[in-house]
């Protein structure tokens, strides 16, 4: 099961993996995610499904190497297997012809924006995609999005590629110049918060896909709770997408820091063992 067809590092800390998962490839819709477990002692890691091939029965995921489990994932070779892949999970994006859609992706969030942008385009929207990253190296999926959009804008924080600046700067220019009917933003929480604050002033409906801490992904553990419109919502079953203007981003940011120290501890132990393994 879950054989790895391809696993490539596309930048220092971002990887792309194609996995055999026919059931998920068959059933997934834009906006949904999977939970993977790399090996027997691995965590359950939620990752958005960036792409799928029904005929080949494969799904494509992008991951950021931040801790032990994602590092182990990056070391997996073609032909090896993942311990487990569950999905598709979460609500699909509410796709229909809104008119003009702007999809904003930041860093690894571009992977989540990709299927949404494609579906928005297929549904007849005029689709503008703004993607941004800290530098050129961290930019993913530009070519894929280019062919599937009416307009694409690329930014980097350091100016190493595309326009120097933030995605929000470019979004503001678009909002100033034309009518936008929907904005979808996926990326780091501060970016989604900034997009949300911007579109609020223009009164444009905005969706964000939240990446909260999660265990089971079926509504059972309640770990992924976020406050939306003052109410408790579970990202896994009520989301992952929510109306950006109602999300408590500050709370989400704090909750995401819960395991910082332990992640460090685990990663140190993990890399220490790797060094032993490599005889260093």
């Amino acid at each position, binding site marked *: 099961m879950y054989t790895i067809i391809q696993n490539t590092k596309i930048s220092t800390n971002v990887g792309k993996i194609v996995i055999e998962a026919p*059931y*998920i490839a068959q*059933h*997934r819709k834009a906006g*949904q995610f999977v939970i993977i*477990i790399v090996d027997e*002692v*691995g*965590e*359950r890691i939620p990752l958005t499904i960036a792409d799928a091939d029904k005929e080949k029965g494969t799904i494509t995921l992008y991951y950021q190497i931040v*801790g*032990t*489990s994602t590092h*182990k994932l990056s070391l997996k070779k073609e032909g090896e297997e993942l*311990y*487990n*892949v*569950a*999905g*598709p*999970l*979460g609500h699909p994006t509410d796709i229909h012809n809104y008119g003009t859609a702007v999809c904003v992706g930041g860093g690894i969030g571009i992977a989540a924006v990709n299927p949404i942008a494609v579906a928005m385009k297929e549904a007849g929207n005029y689709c503008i995609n703004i993607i941004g990253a800290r530098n050129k190296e961290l930019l993913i999926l530009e070519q894929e999005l280019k062919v599937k959009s009416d307009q694409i804008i690329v930014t980097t924080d350091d100016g190493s590629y595309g326009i120097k600046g933030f995605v929000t700067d470019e979004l503001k220019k678009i909002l100033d110049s034309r009518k936008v009917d929907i904005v979808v933003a996926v990326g780091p929480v501060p970016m989604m918060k900034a997009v949300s604050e911007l579109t609020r002033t223009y009164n444009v409906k905005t969706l964000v896909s939240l990446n909260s801490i999660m*265990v*089971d*992904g*079926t*509504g*059972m*553990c*309640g*770990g992924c*709770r*976020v*406050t939306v419109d003052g109410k*408790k919502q579970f990202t896994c*079953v009520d989301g992952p997408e929510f109306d950006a203007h109602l999300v408590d981003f500050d*709370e989400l940011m*704090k*909750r995401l*820091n*819960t*395991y910082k120290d*332990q*992640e460090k*501890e*685990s990663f140190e*132990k*993990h890399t220490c063992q790797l060094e032993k393994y490599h005889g260093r």
Partner: protein
Amino acid sequence: MADKIPRQKMPQQDPAKRIHNFNEVPLGYDENTAVLEASRCLQCRRPTCVEGCPVNINIPGFIKALKEGNPLEAFAVIKQTNSLPAVCGRVCPQEDQCEKLCVLAKKGEPVAIGNLERYVADFEREKEHYAFQKVKAEKGKKVAIIGSGPAGLTAAGDLARMGYSVTVFEALHKAGGVLVYGIPEFRLPKDIVQYEVDALKAMGVTIELSRVIGTAETVNDLLSSGFDAVFVATGAGLPLFLDIPGENLQGVYSANEYLTRSNLMKAYRFPEYDTPIVKGDRVAVVGGGNVAMDSARTALRLGSKEVYIIYRRSKKEMPARIEEVERAEEEGIIFKLLTNPVRFIGDEKGRIKAVECIQMELGEPDASGRRSPIPVKGSEFIIDIDVAIIAIGNGPNPLIPKTTPGLDTTKRGNIVADPQTMKTSKRGVFAGGDIVTGAATVIQAMGAGKKAAKAIDEYLSTGVW
């Protein structure tokens, strides 16, 4: 005379030692003790104990075989009606069921039926395997079971024995439902659950892991893709919260999350296992049921120095099994009774540092028949803590009700099912266990699984709904 032999005590791990490990607390009978305890059974002609058992185990029958030195035969007797004896022998509330109705209980202490069941199941697993035979799916009909908890597994076993082709869909990567994610290793070792699951597989039951029905395929999809009946056994998998300020601070857990991290994901072995858990020095568990006890005792084993149970009524009203409360006390859990949290207090980083509580007193009985707790004005006080665990119960998981048109639910979101036949408002769909009744015990869920299996067989044999 049987009544002169005292009830045999189960040896236990010493509390001082056991709070530092996750090994099982009760150690099990040895052969002599088991046979001695079995000899206390009067072999009543009309055994009332059986009436107290939700799955109607032939209790005198298995005890007789055990007494006569045939534990494997005793195992076969239990297995006729119970697919999960090693589980039941450990987590059933026997004192409220079979043992409560034991004739010996009238004059003294009942036969330790639960302990004997455990002995028999452990004997089979550890010493001499019973030959499980693959059952032919000769009925030519397919049944889908959603959820591999106690209700689902029981129905699966019974239906397979009746000759149906059974597929169990499980959302997580291990089968067992609450038996693997909820109940801690020190109360129910996970390899025992796996053994019971493997026994079902050996009989021919198919288990599809990581298959979440309701997000990809729906119940309707299952019915139209060739399943002749569906049994919904998805349990009470939606954690309830207190809805007080500070509940989303770092370090505030639902019991489900805390226990899932520790049990299913083995966070107690972090960093050997990758899943982290916040190990606080001072932990408060809110609630008074078995799940609260499990959470508190887990916190202790994770290395917490002080662990509180915060419960708004008195000990008398606690829903936990007496045995579990006693064990928690032996281990040094501090009970803050007649106490209710009003808010969680965090530091500047958003991490929990204290809980403000209010003292309660008991007023008139409420709908549950228990005296209702009333806050005492001005009695607020603060306990410094670094982890809080909310264990006040679970609602029904909404995935199936939300995605199954024509399936009637109650106001609370539970699926409406006939208590005898487990039939829902939708033809071909049965439901049972916590998703119907709300949070209950393992054995009650198993009882529902049995009834459902019987009703599904009737429906598929006659075609009458």
